[in-house]
């Protein structure tokens, strides 16, 4: 049993304490936008924000998430998120789209703290998010585009 703060709502989940947050979100709370890709924090498909910081929900337990502010792709909003989504749409970033929840979460977190990221900043912030369709050129361009939008 854990009491979680997800997308601004207090929710109770009746699951074992050591269950990864990912599976509580997906299977118990119906928040399926957060994806499973590897289960070892290697691919970033399960990225959520915990107190505003991007985290791999496959490798955090529900117990550890208690008392923290959790945001999933469904609840992501704000200036950086809007700029990221608009840029992603404009540049048609997604292909299969399966990793893109995680990419959007990671990019929005980057821009929220660093509104003018360099290529090196983008490398550092995004290298944990795998895209097997290799939409990386567009991800990089879209982050720069979103940064420009936010600065405008």
């Amino acid at each position, binding site marked *: 049993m854990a009491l979680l703060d997800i997308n601004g709502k207090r929710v109770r989940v009746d699951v074992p304490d050591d269950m990864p947050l990912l599976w509580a979100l997906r299977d118990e709370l119906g*928040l399926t936008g957060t994806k499973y890709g590897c289960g070892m924090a290697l691919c970033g498909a399960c990225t959520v924000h915990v107190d505003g910081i991007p985290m791999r929900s496959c490798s955090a337990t529900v117990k550890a998430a208690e008392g923290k502010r959790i945001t999933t792709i469904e609840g992501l909003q704000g200036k950086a998120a809007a700029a990221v989504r608009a840029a992603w749409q404009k540049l048609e970033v997604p292909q299969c789209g399966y990793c893109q929840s995680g990419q959007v979460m990671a990019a929005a977190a980057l821009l929220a703290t660093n509104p003018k990221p360099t290529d090196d900043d983008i490398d550092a912030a995004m290298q944990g998010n*795998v895209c*097997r369709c290799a939409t990386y050129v567009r991800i990089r361009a879209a982050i720069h585009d979103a940064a420009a939008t936010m600065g405008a």
Partner: protein
Amino acid sequence: MDDQAMAVSRRDMLRAGAAAAGGLLIGVRLEGAEPPVNAALPAPFAPNAFVRIGTDGTVTVISKHLEMGQGAYTGLATIVAEELDADWRRVVVESAPADAKRYGNLQWGGMQGTGGSSSINNSWDQLRKAGATARAMLVQAAAAQWKVPPEAVTVSNGVLRHLATRRQATFGAVASRAATLPVPADVPLKAPSAWTLIGRDVPRLDTAPKLRGTLQYTIDVKRPGMLVAVVAHPPVFGATVASVDDAKARAIPGVVDVVRIPTGVAVLARNTWIAKQGRDALAITWDRSRAKTRGSAQLVEAYRAKLEQPGGVARREGDVATALAKAAQVMEATFEVPYLTHATLEPMNCVVELKPAGGAELWYGAQMQSGDQFGVAAALGCAPEQVVIHTLPAGGSFGRRANPRSDYILEAVEVAKAIRGRAPVKLQWTREDDQAAGWFRPMYVHRVRAGIDAAGAPVAWQHVIVGQSPMAGLPGVAEGIAKAGGVDDASVEGVKNLAYTVPNVLVENHVIADAVPVQWWRSVGHTHTGFVVESVIDELASMAGEDAAAYRRKHYAGKPRHLAALDLAVARSGWGAPLPKGRGRGLAVHESFDTVVAEVVEVTVKPEGGFTVDRVTCAVDCGVAVNPDVVRAQMEGGIGYALSAALHGEITLVDGVVQETNFHLYKPLRLPEMPKRVDVHIVPSSAHPTGVGEPGTPPLAAALANALFQATGRRVRRLPIREEFTRA
């Protein structure tokens, strides 16, 4: 304005128009998913299998092809919408049911499925006709309503007009009337000069839900009472369950059942994580008496041993032995490429509900509906028509989901059978399951001896290819290979049809029969033949002391499309401009699936070791580019997918066990490794469109290897590229 700037401004224009209209602009309707806000009212007008128009004006295009990222939904809908003169903002896509009679792939002998980069290619004529027929009937209906001749009715952007009387009607307003009309047999198609959607970067239909996490993939399906199954698979191919102690698994709260199935032991639970906990708690004794325990190293040795033995002859022209003996210069090299797995980010999964009256209903990213229907029907003892398939968008495939034996689909069905269908079942593989399951791109060894004459022209090309057939899992393939004298076309494609004029050619194939399950992987045989052929021609050019681009131009056997692609890529890449020490530029051109792609790769080899791929310039001839931006995206993706394999991709068997269990060992390409510049140029063409999902992949490894040669003077003979090629 160059073509790229033009494309961007067109796209912006389309988007600005869409934004001005407001509201939810586009949608994807998916079986099993919530209908989009703009879902059609009951559609009264369904003149054919591919289009329905509702009284609200929504145009629903039915896609017979899987959307796995390649943009099929958007491309197919564009073809229909173009002939209809539909308003793109009112177009939604729905997946076709499994029904080969209506939705068969016209390049697959009518079997329903997606692959071989055939979606647009096989649907082009069919969907143009479908759209044009619907348009003619809407025009007829409007003309009858207004009592004017049909020739006087114009259509644009989803609105029918009679200009003389200033009357107009939306598609929705005349849809019911159109539904009462006979379907005309032969309707004229639009002239390309009248196209308003084809050739433009219309927005993809499936982007918005991917940015909000609302697109429903198989992993997201939840049926009432559904159980999730996670399966313990044998650690080695060929092993089976001897005995299982499931007491610990059953003791876990939430575990509902544990069942034996032909491929292992399944744990069923209320959610995925508990099912996995249960699976991990099983104590299984495996029967290894028929296990396949050879490792990759032994397999390579066995393959190499075949090289000097005569193989099946795929092509023989002239006298290659004599020509090699007489050649002015000869090169000889052995090339090796490893097993590769597809590593889709969404691991294999499938939802099955058995039906009380027989048959089943399935939800998954179906890529070969006909084969899957037959397989499931055989497993259930029902008719194929009783197998209802809801095709959901897939989180990547790269060929994997079109499995010749319907492997993971049948596994899901077996679990459902084992619990007698008392609950819907979602089979979910973990990443580790997916990595170890096989169905790899086969491992190959190539040996090439090639010679040039005193003038530098290629005079002899002797090529031996050893490896499993990617088709091996299909029925009748072994017999077909035997009939073809021991040649597997899917292993020699790209070599057998060399693009170059060489008077003496011998291509031989040793098809290995092995228990390691293999299948097609993005671009099939071209994955390795493109690498080897374009590495060898590059080597011949440098032996001849000639520029790699000029040499290819000189020796193409005709091949105007190769020439055009090469010229475009070379012109846009800065080819020929001098590079500082430690940098290199390489070229490769390869045709696959009727599409020709040229790529120029630029690398920097660092003095301290390692290298970066800085830039890729790509030119593609795919006939009419239905959506140029999707074409560019597929080239970018094909390049990245191939680069991932060239840098890191390798499945290694040790004592039969797959070593690369997850992404720390089977390393995928990550953002910092992607070239910062990937420029894609499209060769202008009015020819029948050909595929783009796969053809971006084959040239990359050779272009990279050739660039590394320019930078280091060393030739790459093996993929993935090893450390010794990474020093300047």
